[in-house]
Protein backbone atom coordinates (compact mmCIF):
# COMPACT_ATOMS: atom_id res chain seq x y z
CA UNK A 1 0.00 0.00 0.00
CA UNK A 2 3.11 2.14 0.19
CA UNK A 3 2.65 2.89 -3.48
CA UNK A 4 -0.78 4.35 -3.08
CA UNK A 5 0.13 6.89 -0.45
CA UNK A 6 -0.86 10.42 -1.40
CA UNK A 7 1.87 13.01 -0.97
CA UNK A 8 -0.44 15.94 -1.65
CA UNK A 9 -4.09 15.97 -0.80
CA UNK A 10 -6.31 18.83 -1.78
CA UNK A 11 -9.81 18.88 -0.38
CA UNK A 12 -12.63 21.08 -1.55
CA UNK A 13 -10.25 23.81 -2.67
CA UNK A 14 -11.84 27.11 -3.74
CA UNK A 15 -10.24 30.29 -4.90
CA UNK A 16 -12.05 33.33 -6.12
CA UNK A 17 -10.85 36.70 -7.30
CA UNK A 18 -13.61 39.15 -6.62
CA UNK A 19 -16.55 37.73 -8.46
CA UNK A 20 -14.49 35.30 -10.50
CA UNK A 21 -14.25 31.74 -9.24
CA UNK A 22 -10.94 30.50 -10.49
CA UNK A 23 -11.10 27.22 -8.57
CA UNK A 24 -14.32 25.55 -7.52
CA UNK A 25 -14.33 22.77 -4.94
CA UNK A 26 -11.32 20.96 -6.29
CA UNK A 27 -10.36 17.58 -4.80
CA UNK A 28 -7.09 16.14 -5.99
CA UNK A 29 -4.82 13.47 -4.60
CA UNK A 30 -1.31 13.30 -5.91
CA UNK A 31 0.27 9.89 -5.48
CA UNK A 32 3.77 9.70 -4.24
CA UNK A 33 6.48 9.17 -6.81
CA UNK A 34 4.23 9.65 -9.78
CA UNK A 35 4.05 12.15 -12.57
CA UNK A 36 0.74 13.88 -12.43
CA UNK A 37 -0.43 15.82 -15.46
CA UNK A 38 -2.68 18.85 -15.07
CA UNK A 39 -4.35 20.11 -18.19
CA UNK A 40 -7.19 22.33 -19.11
CA UNK A 41 -8.10 25.20 -21.38
CA UNK A 42 -6.65 28.62 -20.84
CA UNK A 43 -7.90 30.28 -17.75
CA UNK A 44 -9.03 26.96 -16.30
CA UNK A 45 -7.19 27.68 -13.07
CA UNK A 46 -4.07 25.56 -13.39
CA UNK A 47 -1.60 28.27 -12.48
CA UNK A 48 -3.96 29.42 -9.77
CA UNK A 49 -3.91 25.89 -8.39
CA UNK A 50 -0.11 26.05 -8.24
CA UNK A 51 -0.20 29.48 -6.68
CA UNK A 52 -2.57 28.35 -3.97
CA UNK A 53 -0.71 25.14 -3.20
CA UNK A 54 2.64 26.89 -3.07
CA UNK A 55 1.18 29.48 -0.73
CA UNK A 56 1.39 32.59 -2.92
CA UNK A 57 -2.37 33.05 -2.74
CA UNK A 58 -4.43 32.11 0.28
CA UNK A 59 -7.28 29.79 -0.69
CA UNK A 60 -10.81 31.07 -0.27
CA UNK A 61 -11.90 27.75 1.11
CA UNK A 62 -10.71 24.17 1.45
CA UNK A 63 -7.73 22.33 2.85
CA UNK A 64 -4.38 21.25 1.53
CA UNK A 65 -2.33 18.46 3.09
CA UNK A 66 1.24 17.74 2.21
CA UNK A 67 2.79 14.56 3.53
CA UNK A 68 -0.29 14.30 5.77
CA UNK A 69 0.37 17.68 7.35
CA UNK A 70 -1.96 20.55 6.77
CA UNK A 71 -0.30 23.39 4.87
CA UNK A 72 -3.35 25.52 4.16
CA UNK A 73 -2.57 29.19 4.81
CA UNK A 74 1.04 28.56 5.73
CA UNK A 75 3.40 31.22 4.37
CA UNK A 76 4.93 30.33 1.03
CA UNK A 77 8.50 30.10 2.30
CA UNK A 78 7.38 27.66 4.96
CA UNK A 79 5.71 25.46 2.36
CA UNK A 80 8.85 25.52 0.25
CA UNK A 81 10.87 24.48 3.23
CA UNK A 82 8.59 21.52 3.74
CA UNK A 83 9.53 20.25 0.33
CA UNK A 84 7.39 21.77 -2.42
CA UNK A 85 9.24 23.41 -5.27
CA UNK A 86 7.85 25.01 -8.36
CA UNK A 87 8.62 26.81 -11.58
CA UNK A 88 6.71 29.69 -13.09
CA UNK A 89 4.95 30.02 -16.41
CA UNK A 90 7.01 33.10 -17.16
CA UNK A 91 9.48 32.76 -14.35
CA UNK A 92 12.12 35.36 -13.94
CA UNK A 93 15.77 34.61 -13.47
CA UNK A 94 18.17 37.15 -12.06
CA UNK A 95 19.74 38.73 -15.13
CA UNK A 96 22.98 39.85 -13.61
CA UNK A 97 23.85 36.61 -11.92
CA UNK A 98 25.42 33.69 -13.69
CA UNK A 99 23.42 30.58 -14.36
CA UNK A 100 25.33 28.84 -11.63
CA UNK A 101 24.48 31.51 -9.06
CA UNK A 102 20.88 31.44 -10.14
CA UNK A 103 20.71 27.75 -9.52
CA UNK A 104 22.54 28.12 -6.24
CA UNK A 105 19.94 30.63 -5.11
CA UNK A 106 17.43 27.79 -5.09
CA UNK A 107 19.20 26.21 -2.18
CA UNK A 108 18.17 28.84 0.31
CA UNK A 109 16.75 27.11 3.30
CA UNK A 110 19.44 24.51 3.69
CA UNK A 111 22.36 26.91 3.52
CA UNK A 112 24.05 28.36 6.58
CA UNK A 113 23.26 31.77 7.99
CA UNK A 114 26.17 33.95 6.86
CA UNK A 115 26.25 36.16 9.93
CA UNK A 116 26.11 33.33 12.39
CA UNK A 117 28.75 31.38 10.54
CA UNK A 118 30.90 34.49 10.20
CA UNK A 119 31.16 34.84 13.92
CA UNK A 120 30.92 31.28 15.14
CA UNK A 121 32.15 28.89 12.50
CA UNK A 122 34.31 30.86 10.10
CA UNK A 123 36.20 27.85 8.84
CA UNK A 124 33.18 25.81 7.89
CA UNK A 125 31.59 28.46 5.78
CA UNK A 126 33.79 28.05 2.76
CA UNK A 127 33.20 24.36 2.64
CA UNK A 128 29.48 24.77 2.89
CA UNK A 129 29.51 27.22 0.01
CA UNK A 130 31.62 24.79 -1.96
CA UNK A 131 29.12 22.04 -1.32
CA UNK A 132 26.29 24.16 -2.60
CA UNK A 133 28.30 24.95 -5.68
CA UNK A 134 29.05 21.32 -6.28
CA UNK A 135 25.45 20.33 -6.02
CA UNK A 136 24.44 23.18 -8.34
CA UNK A 137 26.93 21.95 -10.90
CA UNK A 138 25.58 18.45 -10.54
CA UNK A 139 22.11 19.76 -11.03
CA UNK A 140 23.09 21.55 -14.23
CA UNK A 141 24.70 18.37 -15.42
CA UNK A 142 21.56 16.46 -14.59
CA UNK A 143 19.48 18.85 -16.65
CA UNK A 144 22.11 18.71 -19.36
CA UNK A 145 23.22 22.31 -19.40
CA UNK A 146 26.46 22.07 -17.48
CA UNK A 147 28.34 24.11 -20.07
CA UNK A 148 26.06 27.07 -19.31
CA UNK A 149 27.26 27.38 -15.75
CA UNK A 150 29.19 30.57 -16.24
CA UNK A 151 26.94 32.35 -18.69
CA UNK A 152 24.90 35.35 -17.68
CA UNK A 153 21.23 34.57 -17.55
CA UNK A 154 20.42 37.73 -19.46
CA UNK A 155 21.98 36.12 -22.52
CA UNK A 156 19.90 32.97 -22.46
CA UNK A 157 17.02 32.27 -24.80
CA UNK A 158 13.60 31.29 -23.60
CA UNK A 159 14.15 27.55 -23.70
CA UNK A 160 17.38 27.73 -21.80
CA UNK A 161 15.71 29.82 -19.15
CA UNK A 162 13.06 27.16 -18.68
CA UNK A 163 15.76 24.59 -18.05
CA UNK A 164 17.58 26.80 -15.57
CA UNK A 165 14.29 27.33 -13.78
CA UNK A 166 13.86 23.59 -13.42
CA UNK A 167 17.39 23.24 -12.10
CA UNK A 168 16.76 26.00 -9.60
CA UNK A 169 13.59 24.40 -8.37
CA UNK A 170 15.21 21.01 -8.14
CA UNK A 171 18.36 21.89 -6.23
CA UNK A 172 16.53 22.19 -2.93
CA UNK A 173 15.78 18.43 -3.18
CA UNK A 174 12.02 18.81 -2.90
CA UNK A 175 9.60 15.98 -2.44
CA UNK A 176 7.11 17.53 -4.78
CA UNK A 177 7.99 19.49 -7.89
CA UNK A 178 5.38 21.54 -9.71
CA UNK A 179 6.25 22.53 -13.27
CA UNK A 180 4.13 25.19 -14.94
CA UNK A 181 4.36 24.70 -18.70
CA UNK A 182 7.96 23.53 -18.79
CA UNK A 183 7.91 22.90 -22.51
CA UNK A 184 6.09 25.97 -23.74
CA UNK A 185 7.89 27.50 -26.67
CA UNK A 186 9.99 24.43 -27.22
CA UNK A 187 10.51 22.49 -30.38
CA UNK A 188 10.03 18.80 -30.64
CA UNK A 189 13.57 17.86 -29.76
CA UNK A 190 13.69 20.07 -26.72
CA UNK A 191 10.33 18.82 -25.52
CA UNK A 192 11.61 15.29 -25.75
CA UNK A 193 14.63 16.23 -23.70
CA UNK A 194 12.45 17.81 -21.05
CA UNK A 195 10.24 14.75 -21.02
CA UNK A 196 13.29 12.69 -20.34
CA UNK A 197 14.38 15.02 -17.57
CA UNK A 198 10.99 14.80 -15.91
CA UNK A 199 11.12 11.03 -15.99
CA UNK A 200 14.55 11.04 -14.42
CA UNK A 201 13.33 13.41 -11.73
CA UNK A 202 10.55 10.98 -10.95
CA UNK A 203 13.07 8.18 -10.81
CA UNK A 204 14.98 10.10 -8.17
CA UNK A 205 11.94 9.68 -5.97
CA UNK A 206 10.43 13.09 -6.51
CA UNK A 207 6.76 13.49 -7.25
CA UNK A 208 6.06 15.79 -10.18
CA UNK A 209 2.99 17.75 -11.20
CA UNK A 210 3.17 19.08 -14.74
CA UNK A 211 0.97 21.66 -16.34
CA UNK A 212 1.24 21.73 -20.07
CA UNK A 213 -0.74 22.27 -23.22
CA UNK A 214 1.56 19.96 -25.11
CA UNK A 215 -0.59 16.95 -25.95
CA UNK A 216 2.45 15.04 -27.13
CA UNK A 217 4.00 15.35 -23.76
CA UNK A 218 1.33 14.97 -21.13
CA UNK A 219 -0.23 11.67 -22.08
CA UNK A 220 3.11 10.14 -22.70
CA UNK A 221 4.75 10.89 -19.37
CA UNK A 222 1.89 11.22 -16.97
CA UNK A 223 0.86 8.40 -14.72
CA UNK A 224 -2.36 10.18 -14.02
CA UNK A 225 -4.03 13.25 -15.44
CA UNK A 226 -6.45 15.77 -14.03
CA UNK A 227 -8.41 18.03 -16.31
CA UNK A 228 -9.67 21.42 -15.17
CA UNK A 229 -12.17 23.60 -16.95
CA UNK A 230 -13.47 26.92 -15.64
CA UNK A 231 -12.16 26.05 -12.24
CA UNK A 232 -13.93 22.71 -12.13
CA UNK A 233 -12.31 19.32 -12.17
CA UNK A 234 -14.01 17.73 -15.15
CA UNK A 235 -12.07 14.54 -15.40
CA UNK A 236 -9.35 12.49 -13.87
CA UNK A 237 -7.72 9.23 -14.72
CA UNK A 238 -5.02 7.49 -16.65
CA UNK A 239 -3.86 9.03 -19.91
CA UNK A 240 -5.88 6.53 -21.92
CA UNK A 241 -9.06 7.28 -20.03
CA UNK A 242 -8.55 10.98 -20.42
CA UNK A 243 -7.89 10.84 -24.10
CA UNK A 244 -11.19 9.08 -24.56
CA UNK A 245 -13.25 11.23 -22.26
CA UNK A 246 -15.71 13.13 -24.44
CA UNK A 247 -15.84 16.10 -22.08
CA UNK A 248 -12.10 16.50 -22.36
CA UNK A 249 -12.21 16.10 -26.09
CA UNK A 250 -14.76 18.82 -26.34
CA UNK A 251 -13.52 21.30 -23.80
CA UNK A 252 -9.84 20.92 -24.29
CA UNK A 253 -8.90 19.37 -27.56
CA UNK A 254 -11.73 20.95 -29.46
CA UNK A 255 -12.70 17.78 -31.20
CA UNK A 256 -16.40 17.30 -31.53
CA UNK A 257 -17.19 13.63 -31.11
Amino acid sequence: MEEEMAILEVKNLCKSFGGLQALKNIDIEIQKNKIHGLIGPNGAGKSTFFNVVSGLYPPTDGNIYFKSKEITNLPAEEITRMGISRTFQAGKLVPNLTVLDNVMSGKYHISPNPVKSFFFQPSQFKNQEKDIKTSALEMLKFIGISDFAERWTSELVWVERQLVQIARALISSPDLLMLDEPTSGMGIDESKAVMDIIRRIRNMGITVIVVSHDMNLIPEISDRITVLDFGNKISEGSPEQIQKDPRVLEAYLGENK
Partner: protein
Amino acid sequence: MSEVTYYFLGFAGIYVLMGWALYLPYRVGQLNFLIVACMAITAYFGGFAAREWGWPFIVILIIGILFGATIAFIFSLAIGDAPCFTVVIVGLTSVFIVKTVIENWRTLGGTIGFFHIPGPNNMLAIIYSLLFLVGLLVFRIDHSRWGRAASVVFIDRDVAVTLGVDIKKLGMFFQIISCSIAGMAGILDAFLVKSLSPEFFTFSMIGYLMCILFVGGYTTMWGVILSAFFLQGIPLMFPSNIASWRLVIYGALLVIIILLRPEGLITRKMLWSIKIKSPRYITN
Protein backbone atom coordinates in the same frame (compact mmCIF):
# COMPACT_ATOMS: atom_id res chain seq x y z
CA MET B 1 51.51 60.97 7.78
CA SER B 2 50.25 64.47 7.23
CA GLU B 3 47.11 65.71 8.89
CA VAL B 4 45.32 65.99 5.56
CA THR B 5 45.96 62.37 4.72
CA TYR B 6 44.84 61.43 8.19
CA TYR B 7 41.48 63.11 7.85
CA PHE B 8 41.06 62.15 4.23
CA LEU B 9 41.61 58.50 5.03
CA GLY B 10 39.48 58.76 8.14
CA PHE B 11 36.48 60.21 6.35
CA ALA B 12 36.87 57.97 3.35
CA GLY B 13 36.88 54.98 5.68
CA ILE B 14 33.74 56.14 7.46
CA TYR B 15 32.03 56.75 4.14
CA VAL B 16 32.96 53.30 2.94
CA LEU B 17 31.22 51.95 6.03
CA MET B 18 28.21 54.14 5.39
CA GLY B 19 28.27 53.18 1.72
CA TRP B 20 28.10 49.53 2.68
CA ALA B 21 25.33 50.32 5.10
CA LEU B 22 23.38 51.74 2.18
CA TYR B 23 24.48 48.97 -0.15
CA LEU B 24 23.25 46.00 1.85
CA PRO B 25 19.54 46.84 2.01
CA TYR B 26 19.65 47.98 -1.59
CA ARG B 27 20.43 44.38 -2.43
CA VAL B 28 16.74 43.74 -1.75
CA GLY B 29 15.79 47.02 -3.39
CA GLN B 30 15.44 49.20 -0.32
CA LEU B 31 17.10 52.58 -0.02
CA ASN B 32 17.53 52.71 3.71
CA PHE B 33 18.27 56.28 4.79
CA LEU B 34 17.58 55.32 8.36
CA ILE B 35 21.32 54.79 8.50
CA VAL B 36 21.88 58.54 8.65
CA ALA B 37 19.50 58.83 11.57
CA CYS B 38 21.28 55.95 13.32
CA MET B 39 24.61 57.57 12.66
CA ALA B 40 23.43 60.82 14.22
CA ILE B 41 21.98 59.11 17.26
CA THR B 42 25.02 56.99 18.02
CA ALA B 43 27.41 59.83 17.31
CA TYR B 44 25.67 61.94 19.91
CA PHE B 45 25.41 59.06 22.30
CA GLY B 46 29.11 58.32 21.88
CA GLY B 47 30.14 61.92 22.32
CA PHE B 48 28.03 62.33 25.40
CA ALA B 49 29.07 59.10 27.03
CA ALA B 50 32.74 59.85 26.45
CA ARG B 51 32.68 63.42 27.66
CA GLU B 52 30.13 63.34 30.43
CA TRP B 53 30.41 59.85 31.80
CA GLY B 54 33.95 59.06 30.75
CA TRP B 55 33.08 55.69 29.28
CA PRO B 56 35.86 53.87 27.47
CA PHE B 57 35.80 53.85 23.69
CA ILE B 58 35.34 50.16 23.25
CA VAL B 59 32.23 50.05 25.42
CA ILE B 60 30.78 52.98 23.56
CA LEU B 61 31.51 51.32 20.25
CA ILE B 62 29.75 48.11 21.20
CA ILE B 63 26.76 49.93 22.61
CA GLY B 64 26.64 52.06 19.47
CA ILE B 65 26.46 49.00 17.26
CA LEU B 66 23.76 47.48 19.43
CA PHE B 67 21.91 50.78 19.38
CA GLY B 68 21.85 50.81 15.60
CA ALA B 69 20.70 47.21 15.56
CA THR B 70 17.89 47.90 18.02
CA ILE B 71 16.56 50.90 16.16
CA ALA B 72 16.65 49.00 12.91
CA PHE B 73 14.95 46.03 14.49
CA ILE B 74 12.03 48.11 15.70
CA PHE B 75 11.58 49.86 12.37
CA SER B 76 12.11 46.76 10.32
CA LEU B 77 9.22 45.07 12.07
CA ALA B 78 7.12 47.44 10.01
CA ILE B 79 9.22 48.00 6.90
CA GLY B 80 11.21 44.79 6.60
CA ASP B 81 9.49 43.97 3.33
CA ALA B 82 8.21 47.41 2.38
CA PRO B 83 8.66 48.75 -1.14
CA CYS B 84 11.63 50.98 -1.90
CA PHE B 85 9.99 54.36 -1.62
CA THR B 86 8.26 53.58 1.62
CA VAL B 87 11.64 52.80 3.11
CA VAL B 88 13.00 55.99 1.55
CA ILE B 89 10.40 58.13 3.20
CA VAL B 90 10.72 56.39 6.54
CA GLY B 91 14.44 57.10 6.42
CA LEU B 92 14.10 60.71 5.34
CA THR B 93 11.50 61.55 7.95
CA SER B 94 13.51 59.84 10.68
CA VAL B 95 16.59 61.85 9.80
CA PHE B 96 14.52 64.96 10.05
CA ILE B 97 12.93 63.99 13.34
CA VAL B 98 16.22 62.99 14.94
CA LYS B 99 17.77 66.24 13.82
CA THR B 100 14.97 68.31 15.29
CA VAL B 101 15.06 66.42 18.57
CA ILE B 102 18.78 67.07 18.89
CA GLU B 103 18.30 70.73 18.03
CA ASN B 104 15.86 71.12 20.85
CA TRP B 105 17.76 69.10 23.42
CA ARG B 106 19.82 71.50 25.47
CA THR B 107 21.84 68.82 27.27
CA LEU B 108 23.25 67.73 23.94
CA GLY B 109 24.19 71.26 23.08
CA GLY B 110 21.04 71.93 21.06
CA THR B 111 21.66 73.93 17.94
CA ILE B 112 24.99 75.17 19.24
CA GLY B 113 26.58 71.76 19.17
CA PHE B 114 28.63 69.50 21.32
CA PHE B 115 32.34 70.15 21.84
CA HIS B 116 35.52 68.51 23.04
CA ILE B 117 34.89 64.81 22.77
CA PRO B 118 37.78 62.98 24.37
CA GLY B 119 38.92 59.74 22.88
CA PRO B 120 41.65 57.75 21.20
CA ASN B 121 44.04 59.94 19.28
CA ASN B 122 44.79 57.73 16.35
CA MET B 123 41.41 56.80 14.99
CA LEU B 124 42.77 55.59 11.68
CA ALA B 125 43.96 52.25 12.96
CA ILE B 126 40.59 51.66 14.61
CA ILE B 127 38.60 52.74 11.59
CA TYR B 128 40.53 50.57 9.21
CA SER B 129 40.56 47.46 11.33
CA LEU B 130 36.79 47.76 11.72
CA LEU B 131 36.51 48.46 8.02
CA PHE B 132 38.36 45.27 7.30
CA LEU B 133 36.12 43.26 9.60
CA VAL B 134 32.92 44.75 8.23
CA GLY B 135 34.24 44.22 4.72
CA LEU B 136 34.73 40.56 5.44
CA LEU B 137 31.23 40.33 6.82
CA VAL B 138 29.70 42.09 3.84
CA PHE B 139 31.71 39.91 1.49
CA ARG B 140 30.49 36.82 3.22
CA ILE B 141 26.89 37.98 3.15
CA ASP B 142 27.23 38.73 -0.53
CA HIS B 143 28.58 35.31 -1.29
CA SER B 144 26.06 33.45 0.75
CA ARG B 145 22.48 32.40 0.43
CA TRP B 146 21.42 35.85 1.58
CA GLY B 147 23.27 37.58 -1.20
CA ARG B 148 21.78 35.30 -3.82
CA ALA B 149 18.33 35.48 -2.27
CA ALA B 150 18.56 39.27 -2.21
CA SER B 151 19.24 39.29 -5.93
CA VAL B 152 16.15 37.21 -6.51
CA VAL B 153 14.02 39.44 -4.29
CA PHE B 154 15.26 42.47 -6.22
CA ILE B 155 13.94 40.92 -9.44
CA ASP B 156 10.79 39.10 -8.42
CA ARG B 157 9.35 38.63 -4.97
CA ASP B 158 7.03 35.78 -5.87
CA VAL B 159 9.89 33.71 -7.18
CA ALA B 160 11.92 34.47 -4.09
CA VAL B 161 9.14 33.31 -1.83
CA THR B 162 8.84 29.99 -3.59
CA LEU B 163 12.56 29.46 -3.17
CA GLY B 164 11.91 29.52 0.55
CA VAL B 165 13.03 33.09 1.18
CA ASP B 166 11.24 34.85 4.00
CA ILE B 167 11.35 38.29 2.43
CA LYS B 168 10.48 40.16 5.56
CA LYS B 169 13.08 38.37 7.62
CA LEU B 170 15.70 38.88 4.96
CA GLY B 171 14.88 42.57 4.72
CA MET B 172 15.00 42.84 8.49
CA PHE B 173 18.40 41.17 8.62
CA PHE B 174 19.78 43.53 6.04
CA GLN B 175 18.34 46.58 7.73
CA ILE B 176 19.65 45.50 11.11
CA ILE B 177 23.14 44.84 9.81
CA SER B 178 23.09 48.05 7.84
CA CYS B 179 22.03 50.15 10.80
CA SER B 180 24.57 48.44 13.05
CA ILE B 181 27.27 49.43 10.60
CA ALA B 182 25.85 52.94 10.56
CA GLY B 183 25.82 52.99 14.34
CA MET B 184 29.47 52.01 14.31
CA ALA B 185 30.22 54.69 11.73
CA GLY B 186 28.47 57.27 13.89
CA ILE B 187 30.70 56.49 16.85
CA LEU B 188 33.82 56.57 14.69
CA ASP B 189 32.74 59.87 13.17
CA ALA B 190 32.18 61.47 16.56
CA PHE B 191 35.62 60.44 17.75
CA LEU B 192 37.32 61.48 14.55
CA VAL B 193 35.75 64.92 14.40
CA LYS B 194 35.64 65.43 18.16
CA SER B 195 32.67 67.76 17.99
CA LEU B 196 29.06 67.33 16.94
CA SER B 197 26.43 69.55 15.48
CA PRO B 198 22.97 68.76 14.13
CA GLU B 199 24.24 70.35 10.92
CA PHE B 200 26.52 67.36 10.38
CA PHE B 201 23.66 65.01 9.57
CA THR B 202 21.64 66.52 6.82
CA PHE B 203 20.03 65.95 3.54
CA SER B 204 23.27 66.64 1.70
CA MET B 205 24.85 63.72 3.48
CA ILE B 206 22.16 61.49 2.03
CA GLY B 207 22.88 62.88 -1.41
CA TYR B 208 26.55 62.19 -0.91
CA LEU B 209 25.96 58.62 0.19
CA MET B 210 23.72 58.03 -2.81
CA CYS B 211 26.53 59.32 -4.97
CA ILE B 212 28.99 56.95 -3.34
CA LEU B 213 26.78 53.93 -3.83
CA PHE B 214 25.56 54.57 -7.33
CA VAL B 215 28.67 56.02 -8.88
CA GLY B 216 30.72 53.15 -7.51
CA GLY B 217 28.18 50.53 -8.45
CA TYR B 218 25.42 48.98 -6.43
CA THR B 219 25.79 45.41 -7.59
CA THR B 220 29.03 44.70 -5.78
CA MET B 221 30.54 45.81 -2.52
CA TRP B 222 33.72 47.07 -4.19
CA GLY B 223 32.22 50.04 -5.96
CA VAL B 224 31.60 51.78 -2.65
CA ILE B 225 35.28 51.62 -1.78
CA LEU B 226 36.34 53.05 -5.10
CA SER B 227 33.89 55.91 -5.09
CA ALA B 228 34.21 56.82 -1.41
CA PHE B 229 37.89 57.51 -1.92
CA PHE B 230 37.37 59.08 -5.30
CA LEU B 231 34.57 61.42 -4.30
CA GLN B 232 36.18 62.36 -1.02
CA GLY B 233 39.31 63.13 -2.98
CA ILE B 234 37.70 65.32 -5.63
CA PRO B 235 37.81 68.54 -3.59
CA LEU B 236 41.42 67.82 -2.70
CA MET B 237 42.49 66.96 -6.22
CA PHE B 238 41.12 69.98 -8.00
CA PRO B 239 42.04 73.64 -7.54
CA SER B 240 39.66 75.39 -5.21
CA ASN B 241 37.75 77.30 -7.86
CA ILE B 242 36.75 74.01 -9.47
CA ALA B 243 36.35 72.21 -6.19
CA SER B 244 33.87 74.83 -5.07
CA TRP B 245 31.51 73.39 -7.64
CA ARG B 246 31.70 69.98 -6.08
CA LEU B 247 27.97 69.65 -5.48
CA VAL B 248 27.45 70.28 -9.16
CA ILE B 249 30.17 67.76 -9.89
CA TYR B 250 28.57 65.15 -7.64
CA GLY B 251 25.16 65.76 -9.18
CA ALA B 252 26.56 65.58 -12.69
CA LEU B 253 28.43 62.39 -11.85
CA LEU B 254 25.21 60.80 -10.64
CA VAL B 255 23.39 61.73 -13.81
CA ILE B 256 26.24 60.69 -16.08
CA ILE B 257 26.70 57.36 -14.36
CA ILE B 258 23.01 56.57 -14.53
CA LEU B 259 23.05 57.38 -18.22
CA LEU B 260 26.24 55.67 -19.27
CA ARG B 261 26.80 52.90 -16.77
CA PRO B 262 23.52 52.33 -14.94
CA GLU B 263 25.07 49.70 -12.72
CA GLY B 264 27.91 51.99 -11.67
CA LEU B 265 31.63 51.91 -12.29
CA ILE B 266 32.21 48.45 -10.92
CA THR B 267 29.74 45.84 -12.04
CA ARG B 268 29.48 42.14 -11.45
CA LYS B 269 30.24 41.34 -15.05
CA MET B 270 33.38 43.41 -14.85
CA LEU B 271 34.61 41.61 -11.74
CA TRP B 272 33.80 38.33 -13.36
CA SER B 273 35.76 39.13 -16.48
CA ILE B 274 38.76 39.93 -14.32
CA LYS B 275 38.40 36.69 -12.45
CA ILE B 276 37.95 34.47 -15.46
CA LYS B 277 40.24 35.28 -18.30
CA SER B 278 39.12 32.64 -20.76
CA PRO B 279 36.31 33.49 -23.19
CA ARG B 280 33.01 32.66 -21.62
CA TYR B 281 30.70 32.72 -24.57
CA ILE B 282 29.81 29.16 -25.17
CA THR B 283 28.36 28.73 -28.57
CA ASN B 284 26.35 25.72 -29.35
